[in-house]
Each structure stands twice: as structure tokens, then as C-alpha cells.
């Protein structure tokens, strides 16, 4: 699964920890109550929508660089329905994993 040495994963984790902290700290402590341009604010607010949607599709329909349709699709569909009906996360994950596992077993 991991193509690189575990050390590289450690380096990524450290870099990410520092970056995440600096982002939080910069807004709270350094920039103070300065106002960001509205457009900037709005675009940053849209990052989760854009990236989470991309991540869902990547994790459901791809293996490496190939697009594939496999047992994960069942879990995906179940998760969408469950999340739409506002089921708690643990229920969504268990139902989705169950659907995928079931399809693999038969």
C-alpha cells in the first residue's frame, strides 16, 4: 500500500503537523482581527466541498491510476443513502463496510 519508506511517512506527518499548527496560529495570533477579502473567505470555505467530493470518488472508483467499478460501489451507495438520512457516522461506516464485505463474500 505504501510505496515509500516509513521514514517518509513520518516526515510527511511532521511537515503536516507544523503546517496545520502555523495555519491555525497565524489566524488566531499573528493576523489578529484583520479582515480577509470576502472572495478569499468564500473560496477557502468551499475547499472541503471540492476536496471531500474528489476524495469520495477517488476512494470508491479508483485503484492507483485506473478507474474501476468493484465491491466498493455497494458500500458507496449504502453510505450515500445512510448519510443522506442523517445516520450517525458509525452507522454509515458499518453499513457501508458490511455491504462491501458482503458483496466480496458472495
Amino acid at each position, binding site marked *: 500500500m505504501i510505496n515509500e519508506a516509513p521514514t517518509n511517512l513520518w516526515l510527511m506527518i511532521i511537515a503536516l503537523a507544523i503546517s496545520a499548527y502555523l495555519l491555525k496560529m497565524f489566524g488566531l495570533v499573528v493576523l489578529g*482581527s484583520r479582515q480577509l477579502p470576502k472572495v478569499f473567505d468564500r473560496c477557502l470555505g468551499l475547499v*472541503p466541498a471540492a476536496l471531500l*467530493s474528489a*476524495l*469520495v470518488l477517488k476512494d*470508491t472508483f479508483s485503484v492507483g491510476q485506473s478507474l474501476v467499478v468493484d465491491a466498493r460501489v455497494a458500500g458507496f451507495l449504502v453510505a450515500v443513502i445512510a448519510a443522506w438520512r442523517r445516520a450517525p457516522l458509525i452507522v454509515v461506516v458499518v453499513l457501508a463496510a458490511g455491504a462491501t464485505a458482503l458483496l466480496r463474500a458472495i
Partner: protein
Amino acid sequence: MTELRRVVVSSLTLGGAVGIFALSFGVASVSAGASVWQTCALSLFVFTGASQFSAMSVVGAGGSMLAAYGGAVLLAARNLVYGLALSSSAKSMAGNLPRRLFAAHFVIDETTALALAQSSPRFRKVAFWTTGIGLFTFWNLGTLIGALAGTAIDPQKFGLDIAFPAAFIVMLVPHLRSKLGRQAAVLGGVLCLVSISFLPIGVPILIAALAVLVGVRNDQ
């Protein structure tokens, strides 16, 4: 006093719910190839959920560390906006500079939402810290338990490779309430799917970030 209790109870309830989220992060992260220590380090020191999920999702798919880092940082960037939103209350919530530097670690979706929901500085302080510390505790406990459980089972057999997308779907739903959010989600998804076959693994996630530009034109 009852008002204070209400603030504390809602903060701790949220913390408990987030612990469940962390459980699935722990399981998914070790399934993606991280060790228990690495998984716990992510929750302790990165401590911003969507970024952690995103980084390990890219790593697990075989993407480069740089691509994993890039997507995660983009998702962490909104914490800058949260910090700004909280900054006018920073002194009353945290006090002197060292304390504010410590408080910065807890500037995330939930602490910002609950702190800003309070009208008085005193309640804002209580909400920020009970949410921050409570959530940090549950998040890390959940991660550890999930990671330990994840090493004990075969992720493929139990369909746990779906844990990442399932969690992403749950995180995505609230962002689909606004029209701009839906546009960004659709465009981000399309950009990712069309670029997946010819760009290195994980890079399509960065390309998807271009979808936020729908926010440039639209005023609403």
C-alpha cells in the same frame, strides 16, 4: 449556572460524537499502511480531522507523500479563517501570548462553531476550552482504540477500505446545503475523475481544489 452547564454539556456531547469519528480514522489509517504510532501522531499533532483522513487516503492509495501533504494542507487552510474569526476574542479566551500560542492548536471547526455561538466572552471562553480539550481527549482516545482494532483485522475482508469514502461522505453532506457548495463538490469530483488516469496518484485531489474558484464569481 444552568446556562453554563448547557454550554459544557453541548461541548462534551460533541466531543463524544467526534470520538466515534476518530475510531474510524484509526481503523482506516492503519488499514492504509500507517503504524499505530504514526496514526496517533497524526491525531495528536495535526489535530484537524479532514486533513488527517485526506493524507492517509492518498498514502493508502499509493500516492506520493508530497501529494498527500498538499491535499491535507489545502483542507487545513480553513483553520486560518477560523483563527481570524476567533482572534478578537483570543485575549479573553486564552490570555497572554504563550497561552494564545497553546490555544491555537485547538482552533478547528467545532471549537470555532461552539465558541462563536456564545454571546458573552465568559461563555465563549468556556465553550472554546471545554470543546477543545474534550474533543482532543476523545479524538485521541478514539484514534488509539481504532488503530489497535485496525491492526487486528483484515481490512479488505471486512470492507474497511470503504471506511474512508464513507467518512468523507458524512463530512461532505453539510457542505451541500448551499448552492455554491454543491457546485464546488460537483466540479471538484469531475476534475478528479477526469484527471485520475493521467496524473500521479493523489494529484487529482489537488486539481479538484480548483473548483473553489466557483466562489470568485458568485456573490451570495
